[in-house]
């Protein structure tokens, strides 16, 4: 049982690593390893794709490591290995990103990544801070996380759903902002569970225990 956090030179993995290690220890769910080696991804029982920064840069960072993307695609789509994307790692589930330029995502969740446009001009972008979740659909990974639970967001772009059935939760920021998406063995959070104290740690524990 090994959960891999994929390191592709896109931001701070330290706190994510510590949060996953702590919850893996508490729930008896094996080891957590930060890696960029395709063979580690191929051998993993769970895959976590974090991501900070711009969509195109993250996409290129992933493609720059020989065999890494292929290993992720093979594990997630052929062998149904549980996958969690965080922030830009979640956005990569979408069909296309439209940050600076149009770049294809994995296309596993029917959505486009577009700039947040709050209908209240007093609301600033990035959407930064704690917002309360509205749960749209029950899901095993959301067990114990109810509408009103707070999560920590830092982002300027979000997933606009082509298929609303894949949206599991949203929050309000001058309109709906997609907070959690899920489909088959894949789930993604726009917020940072590793920074979201109680609700975040709960979500991580649930993911480590999830058998889709």
């Amino acid at each position: 049982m090994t959960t891999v956090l994929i390191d592709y030179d896109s931001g701070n993995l330290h706190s994510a690593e510590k949060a996953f290690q702590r919850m893996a220890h508490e729930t008896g769910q094996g080891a957590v390893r930060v890696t960029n080696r395709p063979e580690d991804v191929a051998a993993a029982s769970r895959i976590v794709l974090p991501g900070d920064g711009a969509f195109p840069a993250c996409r290129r960072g992933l493609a720059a490591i020989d065999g890494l993307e292929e290993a992720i695609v093979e594990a997630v789509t052929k062998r149904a290995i549980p996958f969690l994307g965080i922030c830009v790692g979640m956005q990569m589930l979408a069909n296309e990103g439209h940050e600076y330029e149009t770049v294809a995502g994995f296309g596993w969740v029917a959505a486009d990544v577009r700039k947040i446009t709050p209908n209240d001009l007093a609301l600033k972008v990035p959407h930064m801070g704690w917002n309360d979740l509205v749960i749209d659909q029950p899901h095993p990974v959301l067990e114990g996380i109810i509408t009103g639970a707070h999560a920590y967001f830092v982002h300027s772009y979000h997933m606009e759903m082509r298929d609303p059935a894949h949206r599991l939760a949203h929050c309000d920021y001058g309109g709906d902002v997609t907070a959690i998406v899920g489909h088959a063995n894949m789930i993604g959070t726009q917020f940072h569970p590793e920074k979201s104290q109680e609700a975040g740690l709960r979500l991580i524990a649930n993911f480590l225990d999830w058998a889709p």
Partner: protein
Amino acid sequence: MLKTRIIPCLDVADGRVVKGVNFVDLIDAGDPVEQARAYDAAGADELCFLDIHATHENRGTMYDLATRTAEQCFMPLTIGGGVRTVEDVRNLLLAGADKVSFNSAAVADPDVVARAADKFGSQCIVVAIDAKTVSPGKWEIFTHGGRKPTGIDAVEFAKLVTQKGAGEILLTSMDRDGTKSGFNLPLTRAVSDAVNVPVIASGGVGNLDHLVEGVTIGKASAVLAASIFHFGTYTIGEAKAHMAKAGIPMRLT
């Protein structure tokens, strides 16, 4: 709805928490990691470490602090003080910081903000602006702990660094810092109105109404305070309850 954040700031020198009154007369107020854990448990929305004696030699102390804090606190951590280069940002992020704050270095070379934001994303780049009132409705940036005037207008500079890619402005009034007489509200309002990124109000908090005013009048997205929390004058919970009662959306835990 997005909640207004309360951010306790720990001024750190040589691995210990201190808080200066007008940046002098430092009083030792404890171990940073212990304090961070206490604030985490108390429901603080973020934490900020400011290395006030940052030198090349003691850099390692701050990396170690960031690492130990990130191991124990699952909440956002901003680190500032002595950050000069993209490499400094990288090292702090790798050590465990979520956001890194430029101060004097951004004044000397605003393009360092652009280089860091391009590399790591705006979401983790904060620019700290220390401003003093020079005439009514005019505020000038001072660097080096408030000792060195720059002749640069604080509002114009806030706009500039935002264009360069700063994701947040940490705005400290040097007139008010340590005085407990409240935020400089006209300054806070002028900067908040001028930029489209969150502004953290800092400097001068003495009571809970000051926190409220920073948001309702100053239009800050977050409020930062040190002494009122460190010395137990108020708890984070009391501050949040007071702000919520005033109609400000808060994360009440």
